[in-house]
């Protein structure tokens, strides 16, 4: 049962016929894991908090650095040197005191990741390395949790949703194979700040859609953005019947 304050706070989305009270309650009752509180994790966490996702679990082992602030908008100058998860918690709590926030300032071991994924309804991958991306994908498919995956660098971004609850959903490992360590980071290659805002916002939108069962999430589709020309491209993904991760599911 929503309080009067909640009805007012969330009124502009509750009035949407796709959402209504039922959708808002789904968000308020949801627990979401956000891995990485950097450029993508900032808008993801802020939009999910503002929309009223009831419980957020924030994971990042890094501290806020001056060079982050050009794009990691959940942090600010006064938080330099502090753990990103704590910085993010303060911003999100100010944005919406109605939600619960758990913070973990650590680099998750595969086992810890598995334990954590099992406790949430959905995972948003905002991390900056391939090893973690593949580990998150494995944990999500093992525990049947939908995964909203995003990545961005320079002027290019990629977003997809992998949902093990759907038998024909491919996974991250159907798209890319594990083992190639050709990872470029924003600190090495650069990134234009609104790019992570755009891709992170798409991730937040997809997470809300999946949680409230709205519309058609990006399952089986990879959305690419070339911000240089502002071209969006949608590519169709297929489940790999030989995939060592998702072929065991469904």
């Amino acid at each position, binding site marked *: 049962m929503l309080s009067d304050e909640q009805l007012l706070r969330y009124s502009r989305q509750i009035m949407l016929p796709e959402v209504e009270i039922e959708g808002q309650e789904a968000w308020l009752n949801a627990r979401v894991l956000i891995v*990485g509180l*950097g*450029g*993508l*994790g900032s808008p993801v966490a802020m939009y999910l908090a503002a929309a009223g996702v009831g419980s957020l679990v924030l994971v990042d082992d890094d501290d806020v650095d001056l060079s982050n602030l050009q794009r990691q908008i959940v942090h600010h100058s006064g938080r330099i040197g502090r753990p990103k998860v704590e910085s993010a918690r303060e911003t999100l709590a100010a944005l919406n005191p109605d939600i619960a926030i758990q913070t973990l300032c650590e680099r998750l071991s595969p086992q810890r990741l598995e334990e954590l994924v099992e406790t949430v309804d959905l995972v948003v*991958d*905002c*991390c*900056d*390395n*391939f090893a973690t*991306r593949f580990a998150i994908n494995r944990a999500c498919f093992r525990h049947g949790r939908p995964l909203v995956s*995003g*990545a*961005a*660098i*320079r*002027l*290019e*971004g*990629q977003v997809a949703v992998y949902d093990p609850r759907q038998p024909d959903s491919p996974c991250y490992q*159907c*798209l*890319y*194979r*594990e*083992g*190639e360590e*050709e*990872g*470029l*980071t*924003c600190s090495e*290659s650069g*990134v234009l700040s609104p790019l*992570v805002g755009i891709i992170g916002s798409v991730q937040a939108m997809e997470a809300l859609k999946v949680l409230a069962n709205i519309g058609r999430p990006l399952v089986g589709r990879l959305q*690419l953005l*070339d911000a*240089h020309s502002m071209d969006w*491209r*949608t*590519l*169709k*993904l*297929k489940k790999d019947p030989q995939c060592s991760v998702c072929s065991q599911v469904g």
Partner: protein
Amino acid sequence: MATLTFTRHLDRYLDCPPRSFEAATVAEALERAFDENQRLASYILDDQRHLRKNIAIFVDGHMIRDRRHLSDALAPDSSIYVLQALSGG
């Protein structure tokens, strides 16, 4: 002719703007491109001539099936798109 396009991320490093080739399979189209730009091959294929793990190829918007031999067939006007995994967050 089939059109081969590399994501901007690859184009920036390898100078590989969109090109059109007569080709019946993905492998044939790539070989034509490699003939013109030898640096591309080692970036796209591994030492077994299989698609590298961090590369994905789509034909007419659909992910290819054969990552080992790249035997997926092309239509005369197919559009081939080659992209690289991004890790930045």
